[in-house]
């Protein structure tokens, strides 16, 4: 199957340039709405970017159907489509909306193409810089710079737990796990937590950090990034040992992403096991 890797990337860049960035630091109070609580925001830019991407992505691949974060917010039953046969576009128009809404540049835009429940291609954009990260299952992961230059991504694998730094997400829903991780975090090299998986996955793929733990595993937050990591030589597996799948329902065993199998084991043993 031919996947229009560059065309999808161009669409995402266009959404970033024409829809998202013009709203950045220019939102009015009425442009920001609370969804389930004050921790769960949506802005006019999320809505407009998803509305822009949805028909255009569907038009790129005949028979494909979009599953966007905001569309699922209106109709949660849409999420079940991901477990169905066929091609689905997962869209996270703005990941890190909490940051976007307060004018912090650590947000991202992500798309994954899901076939029969698994991501087979993904795109992660840093809208402020125009840096685009792409992965194609079985073929690798790349950074496309704004000038078009492509760089193959291969994650470095540090030599011990003491050399690993990562996303210690102390807000993870399992309170015991959060406590254990904090108690032992001095065994590692440090913490970088950008409140946005769309920033954290590219930072891992670039080797700037080496691991992350996520509690909820929501498909649009994790399907694009976990493919990027797998294709850059890393691993995205739940603490119960299962590999992450785009069609997994939200929740479940916490997702531990790491730069390599050995490093995943060190982290599980050194930070998370009782």
């Amino acid at each position, binding site marked *: 199957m031919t996947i229009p890797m560059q065309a999808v990337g161009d669409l995402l860049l266009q959404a970033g340039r024409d829809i998202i960035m013009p709203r950045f630091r220019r939102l009015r109070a009425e442009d920001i709405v609370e969804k389930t609580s004050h921790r769960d925001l949506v802005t006019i830019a999320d809505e407009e970017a998803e509305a822009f991407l949805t028909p255009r992505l569907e038009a790129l691949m005949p028979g494909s159907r979009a599953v966007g974060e905001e569309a699922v917010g209106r109709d949660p039953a849409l999420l079940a489509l991901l477990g169905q046969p066929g091609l689905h576009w997962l869209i996270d128009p703005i990941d890190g909306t909490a940051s976007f809404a307060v004018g912090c540049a650590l947000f991202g835009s992500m798309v994954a193409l899901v076939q029969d429940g698994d991501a087979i291609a993904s795109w992660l954009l840093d809208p402020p810089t125009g840096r685009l990260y792409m992965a194609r299952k079985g073929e690798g992961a790349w950074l496309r710079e704004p000038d078009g230059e492509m760089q193959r991504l291969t994650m470095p694998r*540090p030599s011990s737990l003491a050399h690993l*730094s990562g996303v210690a997400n102390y807000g993870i829903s399992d309170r015991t796990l*959060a*406590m254990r991780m904090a*108690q032992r975090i001095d065994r590692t090299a440090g913490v970088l*937590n950008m409140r946005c998986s769309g920033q954290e996955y590219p930072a891992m793929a670039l080797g700037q950090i080496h691991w992350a733990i996520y509690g909820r595993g929501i498909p649009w937050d994790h399907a694009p990034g976990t493919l990027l990591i797998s294709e850059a030589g890393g691993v995205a597996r739940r603490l119960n040992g299962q590999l992450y799948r785009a069609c997994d329902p939200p929740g479940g065993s916490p997702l531990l992403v790491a730069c390599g199998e050995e490093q995943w084991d060190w982290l599980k043993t050194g930070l998370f096991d009782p």
Partner: protein
Amino acid sequence: MAETTGRQKRMTAVKIDMDAVRLLMEEAAVTTILPYFRKLKTGDIDQKAGPHDVVTVADKASEDFLTPRLQALIPGSTVVGEEASSADESIMDALRRPGYAWLIDPIDGTANFAVGNALFAVMVALVKDGDAVASWIYDPIRGICAMAETGSGAVMREADGSTRRLQTPKPPSLAHLSGAPNLRYGDRDFAARIAHRMDKTAGVMILRCAGQEYLAMLDGHFHYAVYNRAMPWDHSAGCLLITEAGGIAKRLNGDLYRAADKPFSSPLVAACGEDQWTWLKKDIFDA
């Protein structure tokens, strides 16, 4: 005590040229830091205390650039630079003596800088008799500089040259606060307790760079930060800025932060306001 004598001794107040210091920091970034960003070679990076504590040729070059030039701005002032101090800890004693001392963090967030992540900063604080009286945090990538003078408020100078007054937003409850619980250092049970209670707050954001965390707090991107280990070059500039912007920088034992403090003391909590600091202490940090 030396501190008391220092504060009692009368010093001639100097007029601080805020822009002169800012321009020196910009020049340090252009000539000694940015040429190395994403261009460091393996031999350009060294470990200090361990894998978690790195230094690059750019840190040293930036400090070497700033040291004589800042010193020249105030006759008789001394300089306490991070890299000089790591070679000779006694240099930090200058912060506890009367008079003017320049605190320099030539690159804060070296762990980010060294791997090509843009979350780093240059920080300078002017310390008089043990307390910061003026401070600067410069972000070379965004081209922004936060500046404060004791009693005069805090301002952000944007990349386009415009300035705006900084005033921290003050969320209405603990559940609305997000912040940076830096738990890698210090008491392990304290770390575990804080992590256990993080679900009472709105979220966590940790930038591996105190300078960027202070910039984020000044703009309301999040609302508090906790530091178990507070090196003076990491915190003097930010604590003055956050105070001048309407926030507070106080240790859990109730002492206000001072540049003259020893690095390991009661945990430092910087917050967007006095009420918010109290909520955090009561519901997150107290045993």
